[in-house]
Each structure stands twice: as C-alpha cells, then as structure tokens.
C-alpha cells in the first residue's frame, strides 16, 4: 500500500535477502541501505553474485526481503499482499531483462501492449500508445513481426517499449546490454538515458558494462551482497 509521503523513489533500510537451501544459507544481499530520489539514473555495478539482480528483484516486487524495509514509490514492499504487488508492477515499475523475455508467440505490437492489456486498459488507447512507442523506438515497421524475426537490438528495444507502456515511474534494467553487441548496447543505454532525461523516469540499471557510466547520476558498487561504494 503506498504511503502518502513518497518523496524518495526508493528507500531501503537494512535490506537483506537470504536464500535457504536445506541447511545451507546463501546471502543474496545483506544490510543494504539505499535512498534513490525520483528522476535519478542509478547504475548498480559488481561482479556476478554480488547481489545486483537480487536487489532489482526486490525493487521490482518479484521477490520478498527476508529482513529490513523497502519502499518503492511509496509502496511498502514488505507488507504488500499479492494483489498489491501485482498493481505495483503494473503501475510503478517497468522491467527490461538481459534475455529480453519477449513472448515468442506474440507479435512486437502484442508484446508491447501486453502489460497494459493485462492491467485491463482500453484496447484502442493501448494500441495507440504502443504505436507511439514503436515509432519512437524505430520499430514501427516491425510491429507485426514475432520476436524470432528480430535482431537482438530490436528485441531489447521492444522490451523497452513494453516496459514503458504503462508509463511507470521506475524503470529497472537487469544487464540490458548483456546480449547485445556494443553498437546496439550503446543505443539501448542512450534510450534508457533519454527516458530518464525526457520523462524524468527513475532508472536503475544493473550491469557489468561501462556503457552506462556516462549517463549515471550515481553509481553503486555491490560486493558479496553489500554496498561497497
């Protein structure tokens, strides 16, 4: 449930996620303290297993913390129930994945429209908005194609359009250039930066790549589940 005062876009206090596998405990993140102001472009850096994706999953409402508190756009992620988390994902965040995760049976346009349709929006309005996004992302000519017919860059741009269809306040990108060549990687990073600049979206990018560095308002380094700098 969102709190009335939602000044910081993201507020994490002593946030931990510990995975338990039998008797083994694996630390995803531990004791994270983080405050992100709306309109920031934050780059999360760190090696594999440092906790970047775990932190993104918690911010996206796909996973729950085992300790600490997390507020995203005023939503208390610790106490939100399933329905509230679904509404949160529809209204607050848009996600971009390394593996694109487009639905292979749907066309580009249908993939883009999907989150809004799932949220119960008006079909005609949604299609109009999708075409605007596709036009902006130079994908209008590909709208009837299925993902298998697209290049990696086109797939990731489609994923970005899908993330934007519900006008989210926060964009979360998990290694968005991991599967792209440097030219397409550069294009994707510029798009994310433009989102941040043009629509004042809060953008959190988890990446190994240096491509995001020039656009970052803040860079956070994670190591073994904790913020190092």
């Amino acid at each position, binding site marked *: 449930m969102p709190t009335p005062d939602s000044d910081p876009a993201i507020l994490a206090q002593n946030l931990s996620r510990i995975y338990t596998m039998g008797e083994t405990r694996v630390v995803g993140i531990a004791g994270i303290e983080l405050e992100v102001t709306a309109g920031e472009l934050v780059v999360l850096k760190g090696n594999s297993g440092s906790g970047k994706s775990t932190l993104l999953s918690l911010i996206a409402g796909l*996973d729950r913390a085992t300790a600490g508190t997390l507020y995203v756009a005023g939503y208390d992620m610790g106490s939100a129930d399933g329905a509230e988390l679904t509404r949160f994902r529809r209204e607050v965040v848009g996600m971009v994945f390394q593996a694109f*995760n487009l*639905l*292979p049976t749907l066309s580009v346009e249908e993939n883009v429209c999907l989150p809004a349709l799932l949220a119960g929006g008006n079909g005609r309005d949604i299609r109009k908005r999708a075409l605007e996004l596709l036009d902006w992302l130079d994908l209008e000519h590909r709208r009837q194609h299925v993902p298998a017919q697209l290049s990696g860059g086109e797939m990731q741009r489609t994923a970005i359009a899908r993330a934007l269809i519900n006008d989210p306040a926060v964009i979360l990108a998990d290694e968005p250039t991991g599967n792209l060549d440097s030219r397409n990687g550069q294009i994707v990073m510029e798009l994310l930066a433009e989102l941040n600049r043009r629509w004042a979206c809060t953008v959190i990018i988890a990446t190994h790549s240096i491509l995001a560095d020039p656009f970052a308002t803040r860079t956070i380094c994670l190591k073994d589940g904790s913020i190092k700098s």
Partner: protein
Amino acid sequence: MVLGIALGAAVFTSVRLSIHASLDAFSRSMDLIAGHTDRSLIKPGGRLPETLVAELLRNPAVAGASPVLMAYVHMGGQRANPFLLIGFDPLLDRSFRNWRPAPGSPNDNKMWAELMREPFTLALGAQLAAKHRVTPGDTVILGHSRQQAPFRCVGILDAEGIGMVEGGRIGVTDIATFQEFTGNFGQVDRIDLRMAVGAGDGSDETLQAELPEGVVLARPEEERESGMQMIRAYQLNLSILSFVSLFVGMFLVYSLIALNAANRRSELAILHANGASARQLFLLFLLEGAMLGVGGWLLSVPVGSVIVRYMIQGVSETISTLFVRVHVDRLTLSGWEIALSFAVTLAISLAAAAQPAHAAMKISPKEVMAENPEIERTQSAAGRLGAMGLVAVALVFPLAAIPGPPGLPLPGYLATFLLFTGFSLLSPWCLQLMGRRLANPLRRIGGEPAFLAGRYLSTSGMRTAISVGALITASALFCALVVMIHSFRNTVELWAHQTVSGDVFVTPKMAAINQYRDPIPFDLMQAIQQLDAPADLLPYHRIYLRHRDVMFQFETVDLESFRKHGGFLWVKGEPESAAPAFNRGEGVLVSEVFANLTGLEMGNTFRTRIGEQALNLTVLGIVRDYRTRGGVVFYALAPFNAMFGNPEWGGVRLHLDRSVRDPDRALTALVSDLVALSDGRLDITSGRHLRRAILRIFDETFAVTSILLLIALAVAALGIASTLSVLVLEHRRQFNTMIAVGASRGQIRRLVFWEAMLMVTAGEGAGVLCGFVLSYLLIFVINAQSFGWTFQYRVDWGAVGLSVPLIIGAALFSALPATRLIFRIPPAVLLRER
C-alpha cells in the same frame, strides 16, 4: 502415471485371461466329451435309430461305435442350475472315453455294472455331487421336459476324463435309463465311431454312402470349431477394446517422458556439451520409458488379480448367454500370456518414449549458451500432416466397404485404425487453426488470459497435438460406443416388442439349453389346446441345423397369425409381397445374421436337409433378429407340418385376445392354468418377463464394455493433465515474465485453465465427430462383419452430451497441479536464469 499404465496392462491381461479361460473350459469339455472319437454320426433336425449301431459294428472300416444321448437336466428343484446328463452304453463306450470312480466310490467295474443292471441309477461328477451334497447310495430327483424321476447315485466320478466335463458338473447314466427317462426309446443323439486302423482316406465317403438318408458323418472337432468360431469375434472385439486402455496408457508414458525432457532441457544441453552423444541421450529416455513400462507391468499384477476375478465372471456369463455354455473352473496363467502381457506393455512404453527421446537427442549443445531455446516450428509440418490426415479419413469408407472374411472384421478394423490415424494427424493443424482463429474472439470472452491461451495453442507443437490425439481416441470411442450401444439396445427393444411378441411363452423344460431337441410332450400339447382361455395359440418348431460352417435355427411360424400380434423388422423385402409365397411354403425369410454369414441374398435359393427331406427354398425377405448361433431361417408352419406330418410343438406363444377387459388378470389366470397343467415339465414365461430378461442380458453383456470405456477415458484425462504440466513447464519462464510485467497469479491460472479448456474442446469436438463416423463403422461394418447384424442408427444425445461435462471437468481438475508448477519457483529466480 505408473498406475495408469498398470491399469491399462491389467485390463488388457485380465480380458485375455478371462476369454482364454472360457475358451479353454469350452474346448476342454468338448475334447473330454469327444474322447477318442474319430467320427460322429448325426442326423440334422432329428435323432438316429439305435439299430444303426449294430450295422456300423459290422462295417470293417469301423473299429468301435458308441451311441450317445445328452441333455441338460436339473436336480433338486426347478430353480437349480441345469447340468449335463450323458447316456451311453458303458461297455461299448469303454474304449471311447476315460472315466473312473473317485476314491471312496465303489470300484470301477461294480459301478458301471450297477449302472447297466439297475434302472434309474447314475454317477455324478465330483463338483456336482459336492454342490448338492450327494454321496453314493443317495437318491436325487432329476427333472426333464418329459418327466421328473428319482435316480440313485451309484458313484462319484474322479476328476479326470468325463468327470471333468463342464468342470465336474456332470452326470452319466446307462443309455437305456436315459431313453426311458427322456422318452426317446430306440433313438440316440449321435453315434461316436472309432475307425479301424488302416481305414483309408476314402473310408469316409464309403461309409457315408452306406448310411441311411439324412444321416451325416461329422468330425468331432467340427462342433468345437463351430463354438470357437462363434466366440472368436467376441474375443477379438473385447481384446481390441481392452487394448485401447493400454494404447491410451501409451500417451501417458509419452507425456511423462516429454515432461521430463522439457524439465531437463538445459541439463540435457549441458550433458550434450560435455560429451554425451545423441545416441546416449536417446537411450537415456528410452530406458526411462522402459522402466515406466516395467514398473507399470509389475503394478498391473496385483491390480489385474483383482480385475480378473470380476472380469472372468462377466466374460464367461456373456459367452454362456450368447454363444456356448461354459463353466470356468480354473484360470490358467500360461507363460505365453505373461510374456505377451509384459512384451506388449514394454513395447508400447518404448514406442511412446521414442518420440520424446528422439526430441531430446536433437537438443543442441549450443543451448547451454543460448538465452531463448528455439521455438518448435510446426506450421509447415501441421499442414503436411493435416493433408495426410484428410487422405486417411477419405479412405475410411472405401476400405470399410471391402468385404472381409466372416467373423473377422479386418476391413472394419483397418478402417477404424485409418480413422483414428486421420484424426490424430489432423489434430496439429486443427489446433493451429483454432488458436489462430479463436484467439481474438476469446479475448472478448475471457480477456488476455484466454487470448494468450489461444496463441499458445496455435504454437504449442506436436506434443500437445499427440495428447489431444489421445483424447480424440478416448472420446471418439466413448461417443461411438454410446451411440452403438444405444442403437443396439433401441433396436433390440423394438425387436423384442415386435418380433418376440406374445403374452405367454411356453416351451419344454430347458428347451433352449437342449436346443429344442424335445418337443412339448403330446399330453401337455393337448391340454394347452383344450384350455378355456381367451388367447390365440401360435405354435412353432425350432430346429438347430448347420449351413456349411454356420449353425442356425430353423423356425416355423404361422405368418398370418404372427402378423396379427407382432411382426418382423424388415431389412430387405416387403411383408405384403413376401407373404403369399411364404404361406405356400415356397420360400423362407432369413435373419440378417444368417444372410450376412452365408452370403445369401433376396431371391437366392436356400438349401438344407431336415431328416430325410431336402429343402430348396427361395429367400423372400431378410429380417432383423438378435438371437445368436448363426441366425434364423423362418419357414411357414402349415407346409412344414404337411411335409413332415409333425403335429408336435417345439413351443407355443399365447396372445391374449384384445377384447379381454382386464388383461393383467386374464394373464395371471392363464399362467396359473398353464402352471397347473405343466407338471413341472414346461417353462412358462410371461412375454413381459421374457422381454425384460432379453434387455437385462443385453445390459449385462455391455457392462464389461462400459467399464473398459471408463478406464480408457480416465487414462486419457490423466494424459491431458500431464500434457498441461509439460506445457506449463515449457512456458514457465514466459508466465513469470508476464508476472513481472503485471499479470496477476489469477490471470496466469486462468490462462492455464483456458489452455486446458481449448485442448479439451479440440479433443472432445474432434473426438465426437470421429466418434460419429466410428459409430457408423461399428454398427454397419464391424458388427455386420463380426456377428452379422446391424441396428437402426439412434443417437443418445443425453449420454453423448454427458461426456462433455465429464471430460471438461476432468481436464479442468487436471489443470490444478499444472498451475501449482508455475508458482513453485519464485519469478525472480526463474527470470535470472540465463
């Protein structure tokens, strides 16, 4: 899953064991009765003079001759189960059949001497004696249509030779006693012969030429073969039906292996990348299939041991009612049957595992690196398979029209196989079409989940198509059998009311089981004629004859009187045009069964011999009749009586006058009068009771079929559940992506339910369509080729409709475990997997 396979294997094996037990029991009894007989003399439609024995013994080609009489009689009351009483000459028969007294009985010579010396003595089989608690020296009352008489038991037969005929439910007596008891003085049913050593091939022709007119020389195995022939079609049909459960079980193995392959796709890619050969991966899944088969088969042993107990009773009762009398006293578990059951289960499991194993073999090691596994491209394959399916379906009717050997519906079964193959091949294309065409309309009904389900269906590939194919098979069988059984029952009901018309049926005691060999005793016939009752009497004769290999009933009827109260259900011919020639005795009406089994058509000449009289008669019409034993030939009563000078009645139907004010009361009074005069020598059945009994037998006959059908449906529902699980596993990443972009868990559940619904609708819809075609094949091809009869086509929409909620309910229920699979792993973990 293993239970499903076990169920299929258990049903298959139980049905085979039950049928074989009945066949063995029948065959064993026939062999024991035949003993060392080389040839038998019989007189179709009559009995042989006993004096012929002496003439035969003088013939150098004959080493021995033994006259035999047989009849079913009852002991200890009217309602007791009848048993077979054999009468022969103990001396002449000594070299023909094995027999000896059981330990505790008087010694061999004394017992047989006593049978010959003392009238009305008998020896009983051990089972029968034990059942009635009879010991040597006891007196029992035996009943026959001629009389009831006391017999003294002089011994118990040991459990070998004749003592084991009909599982020991048998009695033997001296021929003179038998003749006196049944009133057949100087006559015998047959004379068994042992041919002399050195009697050449031509001895049969020589002997036949010397025999009196109407006496036929037959081989003892002919009767057994005739009986076996009758059961064979039933055996084949039931075996194939039982195989369906196993066949549907094959889809379960397929689904489970496919599920494993889908679940372990990345593991397989890793194995492949680390040096496992494609062949090794193939063998891995093939072995998994084999293990499922072996596990299922092992579990089928206890499951089957329970099923077989019920099955053996149902099957043997059906065979006894419809074909030949059998007493199953033991169940033989042959090594061959065990090996066959194991081999078929294993082969089916391996065949089912082959396709997913082949698919696993094709998984590229590159998938270790790949982010998105390739989507199965089925579009062109579906079109190609669909075209092949259409060709297969188009060939069904031309193939079904090919005439097959009698009793072996090969063209019918091949057409059925082609039908199932055709529909299964059409299923990928149908699914694709449904998915494409229905996705958008579905969105309006069920929102995004329904739309997405439609889309998934269109691209879900061959695995879904195969599971839908299994459902098509099961629901088509369900629909077809429902239509067939309903049509059959409807026609039999109509036949029973029209052709088996009559208010009271009077026959000699145990007439049917004794093949109407003894007519109604003359004194009783006169008493019935003198009854002061407001009823028409329709007497008839019924004679069991053989036309080539077909055993049939020759029945006389007064057509004009019969038509006043009922009538035939005509398949070919017209009652008005056939009646004049029929009444003049110039032609016959034949039942559809007889016509189909013998190939006789309207206008053909029917030839037979009754006693000394040869008959050549035109076929004037073909009518429906659902008695077995090769069908019926109807001939006019008056010309028959004139020809044979035979005023005796095989039986008589009584029709109450329509003018009777209180028919129920008049009927009760009529039955009471008949019972009073019958002296326990007649079977008196009210028409209502007889018709109810016919329908009860019908329902009991199809009870086994219905159970097999339900098992096949249950196995098919399990198949849908496992297919859904495979689909969910395959789409798990996509479902979690949907959750990440805003889908609720409820929407994902609805998506899976819609997917299940569409699969089931496709399977059920195509299944019902296929079922209607199959029902036509069953009624007009397979039944005609198996048993010679067809029925009026009637659809029981209620029962067909019942399968829809039944199957849809089962499918939706089966979707529940599939939805749980989606949420087992948190979306974050799944989406992080590269």
